[in-house]
């Protein structure tokens, strides 16, 4: 009887000791283990992946913190190109008699910031109309327009450089080319518009068609 009691007691103590070994709340994470052991130690060359697309029209952006990357160009995507057609010598005033608003759409729909904060020449360079400008007057090209946005939207710029804001183009690997600010946000009306959602659910599609009428 005594030996039996002794056995039972020792078993309980043994189990308790073993059980108390991991006192921390952190249980074993398979994923964490993988990330600790398998993360690349230096730059790695992945075997060439056939679907990788290299973006053609891009500009380099230097970034010591996040690693240099590329962003899309703007000059090939401007809606109203050839500012110099009307602004003959590059000045904002020299419109050559074409005051009848070429920018009528912007004047009516402009919605970016209150007039106390912003007007056309806040971003557009009035002496060199094909360029933009920083708040201190410094000239900035259209392809570097993200620098202009970052003056006020520096938090978004940080996230954009990191990768949590914006969108990567092409492949998830290799050379990193991301959309720039104006690729997604119309600088004169940056907020995303409301729209009807896409669906493939037939019941919902009927409903949406009826409601849209």
């Amino acid at each position, binding site marked *: 009887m005594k030996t039996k009691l002794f056995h039972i007691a020792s078993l309980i103590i043994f189990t308790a000791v073993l059980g108390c070994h991991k006192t921390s709340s952190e249980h074993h994470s*398979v994923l964490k283990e993988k*990330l600790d052991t398998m993360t690349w130690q230096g730059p790695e060359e*992945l075997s060439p*992946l056939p*679907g990788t*697309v290299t973006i053609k029209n891009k500009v380099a952006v230097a970034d010591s913190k996040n690693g240099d990357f590329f962003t899309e160009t703007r000059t090939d995507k401007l809606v109203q190109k050839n500012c110099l057609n009307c602004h003959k010598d590059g000045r904002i005033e020299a419109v050559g008699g074409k005051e009848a608003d070429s920018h009528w759409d912007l004047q009516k729909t402009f919605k970016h910031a209150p007039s106390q904060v912003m007007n056309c020449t806040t971003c557009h360079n009035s002496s060199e109309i094909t360029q933009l400008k920083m708040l201190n007057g410094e000239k900035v090209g259209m392809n570097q327009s993200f620098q202009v946005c970052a003056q006020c939207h520096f938090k978004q710029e940080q996230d954009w450089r990191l990768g*949590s804001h914006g969108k990567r183009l092409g492949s998830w690997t290799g050379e990193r080319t991301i959309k720039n600010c104006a690729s997604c946000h119309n600088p004169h009306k940056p907020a*995303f518009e409301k*729209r009807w959602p*896409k669906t493939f659910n037939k019941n919902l599609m009927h409903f949406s068609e009826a409601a849209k009428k």
Partner: protein
Amino acid sequence: MDVKKFFFDKLKSSPCSSANNSCACPSASACGSNSQKTDRSHQLEPALQKESSRRDFLKIAGIGASLTMTGCGALSGSSEKKELMGLKWQDYFKTNYRLMNESERQKTVERLEKMAELEHKTHYEISDKAPVPKVLFGYAFNISKCEGYGECIEACVKENNLDRESGMQYIRIFEMKNGNMNFESANSKFMHEVPQEGHFYMGTQCFHCEKPPCTDVCPTGATWKEDDGIVVIDYDWCIGCRYCEAACPYWGRRFNWAAPQVPENEINTKQHYLGNRLRKKGVMEKCTWCVQRTRNGQMPACVEACPTGARVFGNLLDPNSEIRKIIETKKVFRLKEELGTEPKFWYYMD
């Protein structure tokens, strides 16, 4: 003990057949006389002694009929039909994809391509591309950015040849009321202009867990986690028991209650054996992080389609990847962390 003999003995010793008249029958005439009883047992004896022939007959007839039918199928019809029958036979008896070597996998996908050509006159490119080494995929979703547009859903349905008839969607976008994160009261079937006031949007799909409960419960070994982290299904090994659907805490898996219908002109012909090749009735399917795209270096269709950039995809093992930076810098969370499934799909906010 000889069962037949037992019954025979029982008959012989039944009250009605015994010498004394303690018969259980209501009247002697209904039962018949004792002599008649004895006659019946004599008649039964040969029947009981002989081998049960009816069962054997049915067995042979069944095998014969099926052989005839297959034989008829093989003999009649064009050479194309014969070839298709042969390929289907081979396909039926193929081994588990994980046990195949590279050449067997190559043969498997080539056979499927040939079968599609013979049967539907369509040309598919079915890939058997293996996981890219040194890659573990991860996914992040920015709930500050999702506006409920559903472009991801459209892109996914088109890319992965989802059934149009039932409106199957791997991705569900939940419209949730501001103030709490309650999936019970969220609406994933909204149909009005988005984003709606006072609501935010969250998307779910298969989270490709690192410890997936779905792969543990599969009785046939039809689903498993690949080396690059993607949880896949071999549609030809799935028996449609739906254990995996029950095991998944996130309802990441879908079942084909009917044969999937995809319009001919909308079929995506660039397919992968474990991904968007055409499924059949009675099998499970789910998001595969567009394995046919991602193993070639492309982004999943949903990531590419999102107009607000709410979705991020990349290689968790690359310390410079966006996904890695997001989970290290941003305030991230995953759903149902306490279950220990370790999903590789993180949510974050700006």
